Structures are given as structure tokens and as C-alpha cells.
């Protein structure tokens, strides 16, 4: 099992305020890892720091290559797709344009067309709405679109920031099912940040818990889910 992502002693700052205080964790290729923690713990900041969207220090390595002083867009080109909080949909563009944008850095037009069809197969509702303006889609549909857009990159690693946010439980189950499928069949490694710990732990194989900018717990997702003490102290259920 090769290490795909290695984060060492990551610190991140919003202006004068320090949000991450020396975070360290790693991800193996092919794994589906979840990052858990309460509001304000630093989960979103971690994802943003990996993509260099926030001032940070420390070492982040992807596939052995350091990501530290690179621009966000060049980090993306390494094969990291980030689905941000709020989905970041291009609301004024059509569903299909959003998918095309996911693949904008790729040069193989035939491959792109084929992949768009694959996305429509994964997410039939997107095919129905493919000429609609993305902003008119429901929350759940936009989340599907965001995931599909990320997949259009043919990423090796997908980062998802609270994909369940604002979605009905059934929709979340559907979505998580698809994420599991993508991880297993398309071999996309996934790092998903979630507040909904229970669902996330069902989906993931590895888990980390963050509290005030530090990792306080790590291990196998099933073990953590079965450990009542940990669940009560850190995850609130």
C-alpha cells in the first residue's frame, strides 16, 4: 500500500489567527478516509491547506511530490480534485458546461466526451438536466454535479468538504453509496470531511478526528465507530 498523501506538521493561518496547530496524517492509495470533528475544529481548513488556498506552513506531499509552494491550479493538475464547502458550482453555466469545466485541463477530447457519458450513467438526474443552468438544480443535484465535475478530472485523489451538508438523509445515502462505488471501481482515493460522523464511518475505511487544529484520534473506521467512549467524547453520539 503506497502512501498517496502525506501531511506533516501542517499549520494554517487566517490572518493573525492560527487554525491548524501542527497536523500530521497520511492517506494510502485506494483508501477512503474520513476526517471528523466538531464545527470549527479545522477540517475545512485542512482541505484548503492541502490545496494551498490558505496561508500555511509544514509539509504536504502528494505521491512523493511536495505541494507546498505551488498554486492551487497546479496542485489540481497533479490529480487532486477538491469539492469545496458549498459545492462551488458554476451557477450561471449549464450542467454540461460544469462537467466540461471539470475536464478543462485535459487534452483528450474523445476521452472527455466519453467521461461525460459515464457521469450521466452514474448520475441520471444530471443527464435529464444537462442543458439547464446549474444554479436551478436542487441542493442534492448540485452536490452530485460537484462530485461529477471533480471526477471529470480523472483525479487520483478526491477531497470532499461536507458533502452531506443541507441534504436530506436519503439523498445523502445515495451520494455516499456512489462515493463508495467510485472508490472501489474507479480506484479513486477519497478524503472526505464530514460532520455527520455516523454515515462517514460507515463509508470509510480509515478515520481521523480533529480537535482545535490537531489530530486527536486515528484508526480504522470500524474500530472507531464501535468504540463508545471515542464516539461520545469526540463525535457526540
Amino acid at each position, binding site marked *: 500500500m503506497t502512501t498517496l498523501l502525506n501531511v506533516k506538521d501542517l499549520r494554517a493561518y487566517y490572518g493573525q489567527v492560527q487554525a491548524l496547530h501542527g497536523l500530521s496524517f497520511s492517506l494510502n492509495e485506494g483508501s477512503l478516509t474520513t476526517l471528523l470533528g466538531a464545527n470549527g475544529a479545522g477540517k475545512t481548513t485542512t482541505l484548503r491547506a492541502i490545496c494551498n488556498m490558505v496561508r500555511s506552513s509544514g509539509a504536504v506531499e502528494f505521491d512523493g511530490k511536495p505541494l507546498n509552494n505551488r498554486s492551487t491550479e497546479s496542485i489540481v493538475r497533479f490529480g487532486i480534485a477538491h469539492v469545496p464547502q458549498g459545492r462551488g458550482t458554476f*451557477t450561471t453555466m449549464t450542467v454540461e458546461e460544469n462537467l466540461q469545466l471539470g475536464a478543462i485541463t485535459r487534452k483528450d477530447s474523445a476521452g472527455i466526451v466519453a467521461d461525460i457519458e459515464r457521469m450521466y450513467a452514474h448520475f441520471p438526474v444530471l443527464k435529464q438536466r444537462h442543458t439547464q443552468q446549474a444554479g*436551478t438544480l436542487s441542493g442534492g443535484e448540485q452536490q452530485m454535479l460537484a462530485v461529477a465535475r471533480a471526477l471529470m478530472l480523472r483525479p487520483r485523489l478526491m477531497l470532499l468538504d461536507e458533502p452531506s451538508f443541507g441534504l436530506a438523509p436519503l439523498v445523502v445515502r445515495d451520494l455516499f453509496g456512489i462515493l463508495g462505488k467510485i472508490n472501489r471501481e474507479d480506484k479513486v482515493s477519497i478524503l472526505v470531511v464530514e460532520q455527520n460522523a455516523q454515515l462517514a464511518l460507515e463509508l470509510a475505511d480509515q478515520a481521523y478526528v480533529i480537535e482545535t487544529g490537531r489530530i486527536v484520534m486515528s484508526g480504522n473506521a470500524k474500530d472507531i465507530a464501535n468504540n463508545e467512549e471515542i464516539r461520545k467524547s469526540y463525535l457526540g453520539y
Partner: protein
Amino acid sequence: MSAAEDVVTEAPAVEAVPKRAMTLGTGTSLVVLAALIIMPVFVKNFIIFQMTMLLIYGLAVLALNILTGGSGQFSLGQSAFYAVGAYTTAVLMEHFNVNYALTLPIAGVVCFGFGFLFGQPALRLSGVYLALATFALATAMPQLLKLNFLEHWTGGVQGLVVTKPDAPFGLPMSQDMWLYYFSLAVVLAIYIFSVNLLRSRSGRAFMAIRDNEIAASAMGVDVALYKTLAFGVSAAITGIAGSLGAIAVQFVAPDSYTITLAISLFLGMVVGGVGWLPGSIVGAAFIIFVPNIAESISKGLSGAVFGVLLFLVIYLVPHGARQVAILGQQLAGKLRKN
């Protein structure tokens, strides 16, 4: 979410100046004031005249700082208010023999009304749209002043000559020196008023509107009232500056108050540091002296040299003179520690 809409969560277009940094410290202020009081004794009349113009333009930039730096409303139209103040004074002095000192508060009131009225339609505009509207006002003003049916009062294209007052009570000083001290007193009074205004409840209302209009309105700030009030106050102060300017320069004419003046005042605000009241005088110094420096460097390319100097300033200190003052403060702090 409507398909035709863009949802925007904007950062405020005008950045906030931290409250404790809004003015110079008491010590520094007193030193500056002492320098301003003593200076005329040592220099020639022409320099005194230039210093007077410095104070006057500083006052106009201060007014813009209250409007833009305080309430976040853009204005490229301050030259219009300046002109109205100037002409009010000229007309009152020359046609109605009103004492020059009395014309100032009258000009202030007239311009306040004018600014307050202009603020009404401006309520629905912001950012680039408001800039365009104020730009229209500025370009219209010289033409309005040239209108035929006003010529009897305004003197048309020629304008009006204004008599410079003598020092009162037979004081042993030249007209220039008297006017300098008079202007200094007016500017000081208005400066103190402005600082207190920005620290008061109204000032906080202005700044709430500047930082986040929707939130301010949700918190119960009467946005319409305060926005028009800001325009009114800013116009009044600019008008008083215009009055002083008319007396100092000794004439008023439509082409003295063009869009170039409005743009200069805007540049003065940026160079001084938006929203930083003490910076107004630094900005005024920039717009008075740098064009002259540019011309002495190269007559044919004076505009280009000015542009280059302006670029240098905004590269070195994008936040204007306020940045320099903060650096100075930090240095002073370090020296004191050692």
C-alpha cells in the same frame, strides 16, 4: 435560486481603518499643529499662499474621506460641491456685500442641502454606478455655471473676481498670512468635528453601512438617512473648502472646477490613505506639489512623469500615507524598547 441571478457575498469595497489608528496620537497632533502655527512667520507670502491652498485641498480630501472612507460611497463629483461653495461665497461677497467669514457657514448649509438632495437618487446606486453618477454631476457643473440665464449672477464664462480680505482689528499681518490663520482655524474646527463625528453613533452607522450595508440595515441602522447624511456632510465640508479657495485665489470661474479637480481629490484620498483623516493633508500635498515636480522634470511629458510617480507611490504604499504612519509607529515602538 433564479437562473438569472448571481449570488454574491462581497468583501466590502472600501476597507476599514482600525479604530485606534483613525487619527494621529495626541503628541504627534500637537507637534504638527505647532508647526502649522509657527510656520508663516518664517516664510514668504507666496509659500504662505501655497500652505493655505494645502489646507484648503486637505479639507476637501477630508470631506471625501468621510464619504468614501467613512460611509463607503464613491464620489467622483466633489468638484461640483467645491464649485457651489466657491460660487456661493463669490456671489454673496460681490453682489450682496456679505462679510467673507459669514459666507462660509452659508456655503456650508447650501452645499449640505445640495449634497443631501443628491444623496437621495444616489441611494439606489453603489460602486461603479455611483461613480458614474457623481462623474456626471462633476462634468455637468462647469456647463451649468456657464448657462446664459445665470450669467448675471455667475459672471458666465469669465466668472467673478473676489476681494481678498484684510486682517481684522488692524493686526500687523499680510492678507495672505491672515487668510492662512483663518483657514487653519476653520480646518482645525472641522477636523475636530469630523473626528468626533466618526467616533460618534453616526460615525459607527456610517462604518456599518460601509462594511456591510445589508447587515447594518438588519440591525436597525436607517441606511437611507445615514447615507444621505454622509453625502450632505461631505458636500458641506467640500463647499466650505471651495469658499476658502475662492477667497484665496481671488476669483471663481467655471473651468476651475472641472472633473480634473474631482479626480485630483480622489487621488489625494488614495495617496493619503482612504478613511484616514490625518492623511488628507498628505494627499493634498501630493496633488498640489507632485504635478509641479513632474513638470519641472519634463515639460513635454509632465503627465507621464506624474503617472509614473503616482504608480511609485501606490506600489510602495498601496494603503497610502496611513501605511507610512503605521511603519513609523512600529519603528518608534521598537526604538523605545531598545
